[in-house]
């Protein structure tokens, strides 16, 4: 809204040749259109970016790759003025800038299309495009503007159609036209093909290519290697907030990119350096040491506790989210699930935990299954209720008669002691606990009635090093106690660290892979077959 905070031509802080551009940029003879260097940003305890860099040359498509949480979106949000990085430099056509808002980015010529559209469904295409403009609104003029921009860009779009009635592909074209109508030269597309059918995706990528060939530039945020190699000129790979690889697409291969994305030190660079001091990193520092010991876990000889046989799940629209998944989990083993976002792991875990029904196929599940969902505030806790009520929540659906509060309080106090939950007493509200203690509490609650199976989703999300270690050792203790454990983590290292066996979800299908980073990483990105 406010344009006063961000002068369009933000005064250069130092001359255009003061900073040290990365070697890659210097090697390119032309002045880069956009140069980001040394960008760091923290969200609370989480370091989302740690000196990330990106150089976009004019007339190119630049693919920005990385796993979930690698920092792709954060980096581009910084480039679009949606967040102000703690440190780092942004140069537009060689001149340094500080972007206080998306309006400032648009004035420079940087536009962004978000993964989740920001359109008003009840308005027409023309009205949506005109939104954010100034002065009088003239419907005819707005429609003419949309027609002009769309024709020039080679996109088919009816300016008078109501956005809510348009298919997703057309809504996306509307978003693109909205950005182009502001005369942008650089278009950032966040996972543009994620919402599209295969045919539409191919069409969009072809348009991206043409648009760049016309002298503009596109940054394509994606985790699909095929998309990246198909249209991109340059590729940058982020891993845990750092740029680990920058290369010409022509000089690279799916294998090399996959290795960099999953943080393979042999291919990437700079991601295992001694400068890793953040919580998350210290958490991983023991990876190499502990993998050895955890592999000594019991070989799967227990009886089968959880079994899926040809299980499929469809959503309300009939889209297949799980495709004929077959999996057995035995007592006393940890099965680790690895996957990129939206590959069906969400549904797999809920079917296993009995929180979602399969559309078809057979499910064998014991009576008692513990479930630790990734969003504990939403799905696991009554934040304003005392801990003993939170403990009583497990099994509350089947309970009859009076609540034995005295016994439940005692039970909760014992739970707090057993799982080292730091809380003054059982009557404090769940909200007052730190994230790590909340997670230990939830895990302890789910384990309290000694379930035969335990399903855990992103067990250490948002936790610091100590809490992560505690949660992981609790999971191992449950395994050693004979529980059948299934763990999904968006962090492949955590999966490898905990799992006795590793399975990978890709596009709703499940395959078992060797317990190595390479095998899992390739399968996660769908390049195993």
């Amino acid at each position, binding site marked *: 809204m406010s344009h006063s905070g961000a002068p369009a031509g933000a005064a250069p802080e130092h001359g255009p040749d003061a900073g040290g551009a990365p070697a890659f940029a210097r090697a390119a003879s032309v002045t880069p259109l956009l140069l980001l260097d040394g960008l760091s940003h923290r969200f609370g305890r989480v370091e989302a970016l740690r000196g990330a860099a990106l150089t976009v040359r004019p007339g190119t498509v630049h693919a920005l790759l990385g796993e979930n949480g690698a920092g792709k979106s954060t980096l581009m949000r910084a480039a679009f003025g949606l967040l102000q990085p703690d440190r780092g430099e942004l140069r537009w056509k060689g001149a340094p800038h500080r972007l206080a808002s998306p309006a400032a980015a648009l004035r420079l010529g940087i536009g962004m299309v978000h993964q989740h559209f920001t359109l008003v469904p009840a308005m027409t295409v023309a009205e949506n495009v005109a939104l954010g403009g100034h002065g009088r609104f003239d419907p005819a003029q707005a429609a003419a503007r949309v027609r002009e921009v769309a024709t020039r860009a080679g996109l088919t779009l009816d300016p008078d159609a109501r956005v809510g009635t348009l298919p997703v592909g057309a809504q996306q074209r509307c978003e693109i036209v909205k950005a182009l109508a502001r005369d942008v030269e650089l278009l950032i597309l966040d996972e543009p093909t994620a919402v599209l059918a295969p045919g539409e995706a191919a069409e969009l990528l072809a348009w991206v290519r043409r648009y760049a060939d016309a002298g503009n530039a596109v940054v394509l945020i994606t985790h699909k290697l095929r998309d990246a190699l198909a249209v991109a000129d340059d590729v940058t790979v982020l891993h845990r907030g750092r740029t680990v690889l920058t290369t010409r697409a022509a000089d690279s291969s799916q294998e090399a990119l996959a290795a960099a994305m999953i943080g393979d030190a042999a291919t990437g660079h700079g991601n295992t350096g001694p400068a890793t001091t953040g919580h998350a990193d210290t958490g991983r520092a023991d990876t190499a040491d502990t993998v050895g010991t955890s592999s000594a876990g019991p070989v799967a000889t227990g009886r089968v506790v959880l079994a899926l046989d040809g299980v499929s799940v469809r959503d309300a629209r009939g889209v297949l989210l799980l495709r004929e998944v077959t999996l057995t989990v035995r007592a006393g083993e940890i099965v680790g699930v690895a996957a990129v976002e939206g590959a069906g792991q969400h549904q797999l875990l809920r079917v296993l935990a009995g929180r979602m029904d399969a559309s078809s196929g057979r499910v064998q599940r014991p009576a008692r299954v513990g479930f630790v969902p990734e969003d504990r505030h939403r799905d*696991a*806790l009554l934040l304003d*209720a005392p801990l003993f009520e939170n403990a009583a*929540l497990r*099994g*509350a659906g089947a309970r009859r008669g*009076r609540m034995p509060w005295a016994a439940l309080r005692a039970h909760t106090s014992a739970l707090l002691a057993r799982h080292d939950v730091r809380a003054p007493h059982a009557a404090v509200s769940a909200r007052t606990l730190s994230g790590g203690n909340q997670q230990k509490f939830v895990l302890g609650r789910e384990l309290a009635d000694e379930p035969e199976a335990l399903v855990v989703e992103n067990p250490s999300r948002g936790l610091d090093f100590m809490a992560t270690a505690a949660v992981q050792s609790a999971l191992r203790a449950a395994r050693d106690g004979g529980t059948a454990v299934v763990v999904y983590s968006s962090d492949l290292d955590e999966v490898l660290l905990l799992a006795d066996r590793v399975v990978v979800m890709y596009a709703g299908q499940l395959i078992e892979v060797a317990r190595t980073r390479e095998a899992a990483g390739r399968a996660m990105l769908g390049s195993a077959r």
Partner: protein
Amino acid sequence: MRGSARALAQLGIVLLAGLALLSLLLVATGHAVGPALAALVRGAFGSSYAITSATIVRMIPLGFAGLAVSLAFRAGILNIGAEGQLLMGAAAAAALAVPLAAAPAAVGIPLLLTGGAVAGATWAAVAALLRLRFGVLEVISTIMLNFVAQYLTGWLVRGPLQEPTRVNPQSASLPSALQLPVLLEGTRLHVGVLLLVVVAFATWWWLTHTASGFRVRAVGMNEAAARSAGDVAVGRTIAGAFVLSGLLAGLGGAVEYTGITYALYENFSPGYGYTAIAVALLARLHPLGVLGTALLFGALEAGANAMQRDAGVPSVVVSVVEAVLILLIVGADRWSDRLSARAEAAT
């Protein structure tokens, strides 16, 4: 403990603000503040007759409706329909009084009260069904059902339930055998007040000490967690709480009919069901707290009448203060939430 002390302090601040606003409104409308406030206090607490026959008499329907609103809000149901549920409870009792006219009190009174409660529950069940089947927001449906109940009552007292002479738009007078016994000779205080206290304690005990009450609270606090972690049948829990809420309001209507008015007429309720929202919120949805806040609002309404009579101040002034009290309570809650969130972020 610290939390409840803070809640009490907050209540005090809100009430002081309400008093200040009332004084301001009196000045603005050209009334002398002192005599007006004196009339208000005298009308509410000035004599034993004022207490028993004005204040407590109004506290009873406000209390039942307040319990109804508290219970619903605890379950996360925004039941704005206590007014309509209360009216339907009274209407059902008035309808049952026709066939039961000759019944002895021991049979007749329980039947009238039960009939009123069932009617209130049924009225709420309509909104519950609309929400769970068709996703209709209960805020909308219950408000609309209030109008339906209002006009239905109007039709009943001009049609099927009109008194035998067919002159006045009201039902026949309730036979004295079916009227709730008066507690104190010479006053209007009836046994409904005892019933209210018993029901308030029962509601509190049920919410805090039973598994089904715990499920209602859990669903109200976090539906997703109740479903995922507690395996609670959320839809069934919401339906149950909604119907129970309507039952309490309907019972309140039947008690008002058998205890005070002895007849059904169009303006049977002077907005008890709406004031009950303030009663419930000010009590922080605690059933026992409702007894206190219902007494407070009963006193305000009784005092407002006296103020109008003795000092010539329109009683709507008090209605304005009541409305502002609701806004103050909600605002204070948000504000303290923000403060505690900020304190959390700072650690």
